[in-house]
Every structure is written in C-alpha cells, then in structure tokens.
C-alpha cells in the first residue's frame, strides 16, 4: 500500500503556524523535475530554517504535533522544548531531525552551504502538493549549495542530475 502524503501534512502544519522554512536538498530539487526520469529517490526532507530561536521552537512544536519525535545527533532533543534550548541549538547551528520512526525523516537545518536564509527565502517558489503550499528553494540555489558542499553524495547527485537534464534536452531536440 502506498504511503500517505506526509510532506503535505507537515507543510500544512508548518504553514498554519506561520513558520518560515524552505525545502532544499534532493526533495526540493525533485519538485522542479520535468518528468519522472529526473526524480531522485530520497528518504528524507531537508527544511532550511532561519537562525531565529522563536521560529526554531515553533517548528519543533509543529513537528511534535504532527507525531514526529525530535533528535539531535543520536540523542532525543529532550524536554522541555523552550526558548533557551532553541537559542542553544541556533547558536550552534545544530541540526535537529524530526522522525516518525516509520520512514518519515525531516532534517531541520540552519545551514545551507554557500547561502544565507534570507537569500533563499526571498527567491523561493511556492509549489502546491496535494492542495498544500510548500516553500521550495530555487533549483539554482540547491545545485549551487550541493556544489559548494562537494560531499560524495552531492557529487553523485550533480552528475546524475546533469546527465538527466542532458538526456531530456536531447529528447526535446529529437522531437523538434
């Protein structure tokens, strides 16, 4: 049985709470896909948040209300979830992972290589997934960030993505 739309459900909760976030990473790039051939399998969603403790705290509460547990590294984020804890996490630019333990993993990141939040936020696109608006980073920002990070998985994505676009362009040219 196909899993339900978890991205839409979470985005709906985040939107309702007025939380600023931008979907980045492979899941973000997928929303720019022209066809199924340029969709990449990914197990998680990366949400880029501003270095704002209030926003961070609100994002945690939204995740919790969606049934997700919060983790920092291998440890539960703990409680109470309060302003002080959010300030510590933001000051350290620490990554918090929200997970339902059944395959939905959402990384709440305060870092996007090569970019500050305001730049990505101001140029975001709003796409609709199953009736829910999702804030998505520009594709140029996603690929530039992956190029700046230069990890093995980023290199693999960039090479695969470029090849997929090349094949699409070739197909378009053949049709014309």
């Amino acid at each position: 049985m196909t899993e339900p739309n978890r991205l839409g459900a979470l985005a709906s909760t985040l939107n309702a709470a007025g939380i600023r976030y931008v979907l980045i990473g492979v899941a973000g790039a997928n929303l720019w896909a022209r066809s199924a051939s340029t969709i990449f399998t990914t197990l998680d969603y990366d949400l880029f948040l501003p270095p704002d403790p209030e926003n961070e705290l609100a994002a945690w509460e939204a995740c919790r209300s969606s049934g997700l547990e919060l983790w920092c590294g291998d440890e539960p984020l703990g409680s109470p979830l309060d302003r002080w804890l959010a300030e510590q996490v933001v000051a350290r630019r620490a990554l918090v992972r929200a997970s339902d333990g059944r395959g939905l993993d959402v990384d709440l990141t305060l870092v996007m290589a090569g970019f500050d939040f305001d730049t990505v936020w101001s140029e975001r696109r709003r796409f609709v997934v199953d009736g829910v608006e999702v804030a998505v980073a520009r594709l140029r920002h996603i690929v530039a960030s992956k190029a700046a990070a230069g990890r093995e998985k980023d290199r693999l994505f960039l090479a695969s993505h470029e090849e997929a676009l090349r094949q699409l362009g070739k197909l378009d040219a053949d049709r014309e």
Partner: protein
Amino acid sequence: MDPSRKRLFDILDEVRTWPRPTGPVNLRPEYLRAVEEIEARPENRSGADKSWVESTRREFRDLIARAKPLD
C-alpha cells in the same frame, strides 16, 4: 555464494577503498543554463501543482519496500 556474485562483492569492496574526491565542485555553464531554463518554464511558476512528483516518489518507495532478494 554464487562465484560471480562473490566477485562482484569483491570488486565493490575494492572500490570502497579508493580515495574519494571532496570539496567544491565547478558546475559547467551548460548545466547552469539548463537549470535556469527549468526554473523559467511555465510549469515551474509559483502556485504550480506538483502533486505528481510526490505521488511518483511515494510509488518508488513503495516499490522498493516490496523488493525481495532473489535468493
């Protein structure tokens, strides 16, 4: 284990030990132009319905979850 499969695993183990490049990647101008073209397409305007992407991704995951080894 099937000998051909063992040989494949041996090759993969060897590849795993190879040095892997890290650090910033220079993106080719052709690639960046293709990315800009994608962003400018009508189907990628704000408000575009992307439900098909998530449903496709979910189908992929569902398919993978049901995969079983041959032996």
